[in-house]
């Protein structure tokens, strides 16, 4: 039970009717776990119908795996209920923190990469995989700051996490490009160091840009088409890995379903190239 090596789309309820009419237009849909934690109603009806005909990825944005404090066991229980109900083909979360004390912050926030944070995050992932009874994927973040305390490269940090916990990785190629641009580093060097054999899914999204005195600041806005340099990096990754489940994320200023399908078609063309190169 895994996601297919095809394009996928982030599920938007406003597209539900078109998705039904064009069943199978993409191989899978991804939903944010926290949007399906009410007791019933339209969200669950739609997710059930979606899962009748498509593979599903449940993508959490609320577990705060990168937080310094303990995980919210009540939230882990909610995730377990959701996963037991829908049996999704994949569950993923973020290398980020999003709550502090009792306050939930509704954003994916960064942490220093140190031996201390590595140990804490590995404990959190062990606890999560145990509570959910399955292997999860962890996504690399888009970041705007770095920390004086950091002693490990992000790729080393993620590699260590995956090695110690057995989790897989979700490679967000846009996040790689955004972070590398923001920190004036080389995205290809990052991808050269990334443990691509552990990647179970790819994310692609659009970003916005503004100018700082010493160069651009890219913002991971999920509000635009995927940028050309991100498509190029994606093709380079697939040339090394072969085809992988590849999600188009577009969460703000949501366009028509047709526009999302144009993005999916672009991913599909690159997936086909990677498949043909393997076959050759």
């Amino acid at each position: 039970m895994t996601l297919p090596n095809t394009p996928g789309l982030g599920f938007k309820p406003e597209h539900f009717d078109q998705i039904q009419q064009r069943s199978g237009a993409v191989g899978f849909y991804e939903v944010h776990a926290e949007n399906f934690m009410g007791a019933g109603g339209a969200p669950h009806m739609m997710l059930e119908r979606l899962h009748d005909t498509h593979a599903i990825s449940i993508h959490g944005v609320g577990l705060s795996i990168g937080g310094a404090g303990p995980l919210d066991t009540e939230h882990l229980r909610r995730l377990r209920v959701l996963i037991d109900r829908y049996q999704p083909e994949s569950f993923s979360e973020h290398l980020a923190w999003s709550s502090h004390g009792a306050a939930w912050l509704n954003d994916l926030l960064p942490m220093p990469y140190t031996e201390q944070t590595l140990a804490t995050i590995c404990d959190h992932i062990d606890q999560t995989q145990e509570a959910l009874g399955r292997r999860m994927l962890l996504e690399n973040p888009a970041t705007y700051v770095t920390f004086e305390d950091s002693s490990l490269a992000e790729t080393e940090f993620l590699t260590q996490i995956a090695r110690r916990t057995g989790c897989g990785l979700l490679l967000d190629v846009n996040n790689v490009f955004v972070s590398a641009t923001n920190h004036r580093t080389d995205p290809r060097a990052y991808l050269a160091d990334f443990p691509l054999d552990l990647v179970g899914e790819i994310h692609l999204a659009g970003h916005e840009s503004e100018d700082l005195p010493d160069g651009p600041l890219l913002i991971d806005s999920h509000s635009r088409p995927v940028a050309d340099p991100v498509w190029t990096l994606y093709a380079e990754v697939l040339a090394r890995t072969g085809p992988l489940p590849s999600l188009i994320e577009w969460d703000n200023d949501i366009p028509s379903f047709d526009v999302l399908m144009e993005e999916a078609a672009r991913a599909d063309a690159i997936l086909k190239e990677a498949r043909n190169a393997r076959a050759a």
Partner: protein
Amino acid sequence: MPAPLDPATDPHGAMEARFHAALWSPETPLGLAAANDNDRRFLVYRNNVQHGMCSAFAQRFPAVERLVGSDFFTAMARVFAAQHPPKTPVLIDWGGDFPSFLEGFPPVAKLPYLADVARLELARGRAYHAADTPVADPAALMAGDPSGLRLILAPSVIAYSSRFPAVTIWANNQPGATAAPLPKGPQYALIGRTPAFDVPVMPLGADQYAILTKLMIGTPLGEAAANTDPTPTLALLLQHGLITAIDGETQ
């Protein structure tokens, strides 16, 4: 508040606490490593957190937003979010104390009905996400004397009341609505989710509201409707599939 963290023994927790405090203050936290522009870089997080919460809030309370205007609403939502941050990542559970916040927020003291409009919007949100239940066969209500029957209503059913004409104010502030004249005095409504997942707000008279509140606690039909014909309320409940089960037998 958690105890202050010692950066020597818990640098992760100390950094997180500094970062968190800076999200709600103008100061950029210490310990960031970029050579330049850490203020602007950190601002992305501060904007994301504040904007994300305010826009989530505007989606929950669109009529309140319309009544006070978008800019004012955003400023007010920021104050609320700083004082009453969500306690869980399930944002549909956030905002239950927004009506009481509005009642005590001096800048909206001249809009005393605003809290009740917020209560109505909260009620609709709860109904939208309430548990799914079957729809009862209404035949039992039609055969014989139903006065001994108890109705089990759908979990989405809410009996709404306001000292103000908040139902009309809410309706007047729906997209494309033509403004109806405001009645004087209190208003009552039945709110519930239909099998098509709509959440209508159905105005009730005071006596029908009283019947609804009795039916909701399992009062037998005859007793709930001792003084008034319950047909209008029953018709709304039946029409919108809001009766889950009918207990007891007709006589």
